[in-house]
């Protein structure tokens, strides 16, 4: 089973993600440069964090037009699990694969700190080993992380169970404390916090198990090895 990690100019969490997939969870992973296509034998796709195109215009807006996004779109339609983390989430939103917008944090500061999430949907390929309302200690690191949707879209998200994670506290002014959402089918998930920075006890001072379950959920979904 192979996981594709997409690399955009300015991605900087791609190697952390690759390390966690391969060294921690023993998955087969491969980097894919954004100008190339994705092969058909990919079982899941991850868009990592970073600052694609230096956040020019706004976070994710330019990378959303990269050639590889056409393949990501096709895979999303086929039901293949796709996860966007931080800038990856912003790219999925700007590509129209997830609803909403990510605005500057209310504080206007780049925020780099630990917080915790509450699992609101444990039916996605990235949350199916987590318990509903389980708490996940996890770091955030973003300047444009304030998730926004209008009232009508918020109603739709709630109705379709598309809110995947909420912050346990008010962090950055996000609508309804939303930290992660999925598409209507549930296979495309985006989240602002960084699970790849929280799965190892050496770098997680609180509890690395809940974040690990995000990756173990993926393994449960796609199988372990070829």
């Amino acid at each position: 089973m192979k996981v594709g990690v997409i690399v955009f100019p300015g991605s900087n969490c791609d190697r952390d993600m690759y390390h966690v997939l391969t060294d921690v969870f023993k998955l087969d992973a491969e980097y894919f440069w954004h100008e190339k296509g994705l092969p058909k034998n990919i079982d899941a796709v991850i868009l990592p964090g970073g600052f694609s195109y230096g956040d020019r215009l706004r976070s994710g807006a330019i990378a959303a037009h990269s050639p590889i996004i056409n393949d990501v779109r096709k895979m999303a339609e086929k039901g293949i699990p796709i996860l966007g983390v931080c800038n990856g989430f912003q790219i999925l939103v700007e590509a129209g694969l997830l609803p909403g917008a990510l605005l500057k944090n209310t504080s206007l500061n780049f925020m780099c700190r630990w917080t915790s999430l509450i699992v609101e949907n444990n039916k996605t390929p990235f949350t199916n080993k987590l318990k509903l309302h389980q708490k996940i200690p996890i770091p955030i690191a973003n300047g444009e992380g304030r998730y926004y949707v209008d009232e009508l879209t918020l109603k739709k998200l709630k109705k379709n169970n598309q809110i995947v994670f909420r912050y346990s506290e008010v962090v950055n002014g996000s609508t309804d404390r939303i930290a992660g959402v999925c598409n209507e089918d549930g296979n495309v998930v985006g989240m602002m916090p960084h699970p790849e920075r929280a799965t190892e006890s050496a770098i997680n001072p609180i509890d690395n198990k809940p974040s690990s379950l995000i990756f173990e959920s993926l393994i449960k979904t796609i199988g372990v090895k070829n």
Partner: protein
Amino acid sequence: MAIFNVHVTIENKPGISDPEGETILNDLVLKGTHSSISKIKTAKMLKFTIKEKDKKIAKAKVQEICDDLRIYNPMVSKVTIDVFDA
């Protein structure tokens, strides 16, 4: 054909908070003697230079680019397009 300067102003839709504008208003302008100011909104401006037949076509072309390439996110932002002779 003529050259036109097209200014695209991208700003938050009404009702969506603009903490930068609020800070400029509350912590700079209103701390001086400028009490007549009631609101400040920040925006981003892109200045296009375009060669087209007339102003109307130039405006329509830039609007099309803004919509097609999602120069603004319609969930939160609106654009205002102004055309000037170069």
